């Protein structure tokens, strides 16, 4: 549990730095993959950690834009996607990042196992 939390924080911190030159989607794929390859972790926990880390990272990145914007953009985007409000839009957006991060973390764990054999 503690490990999951620490690794997630590492993903968030690295992600915030990488966001200066890297897209959110590539970070969601690369960061958990690389980190989990270098760890001994079960597939399930790797998924959970990647999911949590990237979801948090995306949430922070989004809030940095959304809060000073007073939700102008997110409300309009929510409308486009047929969602009731900006919070729902952010939730969907964050879950998407989490899914990417989770799958990528799981892939990392599997690759780690493969290399160890």
């Amino acid at each position, binding site marked *: 549990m503690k490990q999951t939390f620490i690794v997630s924080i590492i993903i968030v911190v690295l992600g915030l730095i990488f966001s200066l030159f890297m897209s*959110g989607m590539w970070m969601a794929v690369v960061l958990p993959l690389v980190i989990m390859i270098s760890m001994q972790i079960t597939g399930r926990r790797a998924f959970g950690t990647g999911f949590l880390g990237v979801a948090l990272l995306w949430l922070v990145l989004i809030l940095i834009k*959304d809060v000073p914007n007073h939700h102008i953009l997110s409300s309009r985007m929510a409308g*486009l996607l047929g969602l009731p409000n900006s919070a729902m839009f952010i939730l969907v957006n964050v879950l998407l990042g989490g899914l990417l991060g989770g799958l990528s973390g799981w892939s990392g764990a599997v690759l780690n196992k493969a290399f160890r054999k």
Partner: protein
Amino acid sequence: MRKVIAILPLVFTSLLVYFLTKPMGSIPALGKLLDPVVGCWASAESVNKNYNNKLKLDGLKKGVTVSFDERLVPHIKAGNDYDLYYTQGYLHAYFRLWQMDLQTRAAGGRVSEILGDKALKFDRTQRRKGMVYGAEQSLKAMEADPRSKQMLDAYTAGINAYINTLSFKTYPLEYKLAGFEPEPWTNLKSALLLKYMADDLTGYTEDIALTVLRDMLSPEEFAALYPERLHGVNPVIPHDSVKQTASLSAPAIPADSIAWAHLTATDFEVEEEGKGSNNWVLGGSRTKSGKPILCNDPHLGLNLPSLWYEVQMTAPGINVYGVSLPGSPGVIIGFNDNISWGFTNNYRDVKDFYAIQPASATTYKFAGKEQPYINRAEKISIKGKPDYYDTVKYTVQGPVMYEETFHGPGGLKKPIAVTWMAHRPSNEVLALYMLNRSGNYNEYVAAIHNFLCPAQNMIYADRHGDIALWGQGQFINKWRGQGRYVMNGADSATLWGQNIPVAENPHAHNPAQGYIASANQTVTDTTYPYWYNGYFYEFRSWRINDVLRNTRNATVEDMFALQNDVFSVLASNVLPVMLTHITPNEITDKERNYLNMLGSWDYRLMAESKAATVFQVWWANLYATLWAKRFGKIPDQLKPSPERTMQLLKEESPYLGNIKGAVVASLRNSIDSLEKLKKADRLEWYKAKNTSVKHLTKLAPFSYSDLKIGGWGNTVNAAKTDHGPSWRMVVQMGDAIEAYGVYPGGQSGNVGSKYYATFLDKWVKGEYYKLSFYTADAKPAATYTWSINPKNK
């Protein structure tokens, strides 16, 4: 088996990434769009964004300062013309790149590149109309004059300087939604944008429908229902103006058998009903200050990002404020240190159609001979499909717009060629260059004489006290009736003849009545020596003239009130007549309830008026009923005009048949619609008509609807469903210029910016901003400042 399972997460991840980065049909690549770093979130602009900026730009000659006021209107101060237009281009691109890119692609028939083959018909229409051909012709003229060439070159360089800074992350959101990319700007794109406006304002195809109608009706009937000149009009050029003399004599009228083509069509396509506009100017004799007041509100499509971008432009020899069109350099409507001006559409017909008689696949009959077509290959790129090639045949008259392979309105298969003023070389950019710098009446006249298409009623006032108006454009010395219907393309007598010298265009300069007003009505009285026709509208003109005739000691506030006036001349004339045909004991209770609402109505289409809705619904039904027998299938726009119908109704004309029956039946038919509105709580006029300002994509979350504004196309405040006053401006030409304005939008085109629709509220309420116009030597009070310097200097 375990190994297979082991690679599953890798497969899932790859599939998800693939799915998220590929657009599916019209759905954009979601992963890119929702990316928190480079996706839509990059467009979320802080409401406290600090716009201050220091820029180093390639190609700029000297330093430029841009001071933004609190409404984000830039006041550009440059050391020379080049830098001035360079900076304007940079600003237009910075705030409005997507709209100018899209509009010029649309003008040139290139929408299929973005939307796929569903836009192919639109693109082919644009090509066949000769939009690109016309833009190329004008570009030649624009690049032949060093002033307009430099203006365009600088403007294009400024736009491209901004485009070159962009990456996917910084693209306007709409590019990410539609999955295309900005392309480098060219001078041709600016020329295309001006043709886009010309098409919007002169692109009517009514000639074709009128041809069919003329053959349907007897000559007497046709003349009564479609009079060439309506009686009782207040022409733009007042009766007491200096009478124009003609240096050209009228060409001989060819025999009917030579002049006209005959067409049959079963149904009609019509374009959106007329785009109106108002402008008027009061001389000092009619104002409280003793100084002229100029007013203008051009009515155009209500869209976001707005068509207009407000700007002040200052450099040696120029200090001008007003609205500009993103995509074109200079100020279109506005004022400078000495003069102010405004435009309304002139509506004289400058687009005529010819029925072409093919002789073979590659030739057509003309003047007793076979002439070869000149072919122009139009390549249309289509997203996800192979390129489409359309060959457009050009005759001596112009491009063959419709033919067997591209049907015209009503399934018309006969080849029809079009002669259109917008195909001729003209330099409107130079006209604006000179107009922006004009200091007096003579300079204004010299400037606007370069403005050839779209023809405009160009109103004028200056600080010396002069007021004027020119019905300016390039017109043809036509024989009586020429171009009213589709002409016979095989005879040379139907070709357009000589240009009327622009100096002989209708104009008024300081008329005795002390004011001049134009609202798309008939331009001149019968003393004007040249024949013309057009699509004129009279209601707003009647109202404006009625008010101004009695105006003394006018203030700018009086002018605000007139621009927001919603008095319906139509209602005040026809409703009393309609009511006389109603017998109280022959109507139902429901009908009586609605009629009671009209009892104390003052004929004003106020936002909250329910009576206004009752009248509008009833009138629409009556109009349809009156013409139902004669013009069953023909859409409203092609029926006798509401103005003419109103006159016939008041005269109890036999052409209308059983008027009483129509009035009673139409009231009965209205009840259903009214009940429906009532049930939906939409009986108030603003709800019933639903004035909306829509994003160019029509996406509802980027748009505003149900705006609480009164009026209709036939009232001065012409706020229709998707058309209306696109820029309201009032300028008092005192020693210090006092100017007010508002447009339904905001300075930023970014849907994620608080400046996206900032002005909309005031526009709806009929309020104005006082415009901050600084003299050339004053230092603007800046909320934000950009200092721009040349790179490597």
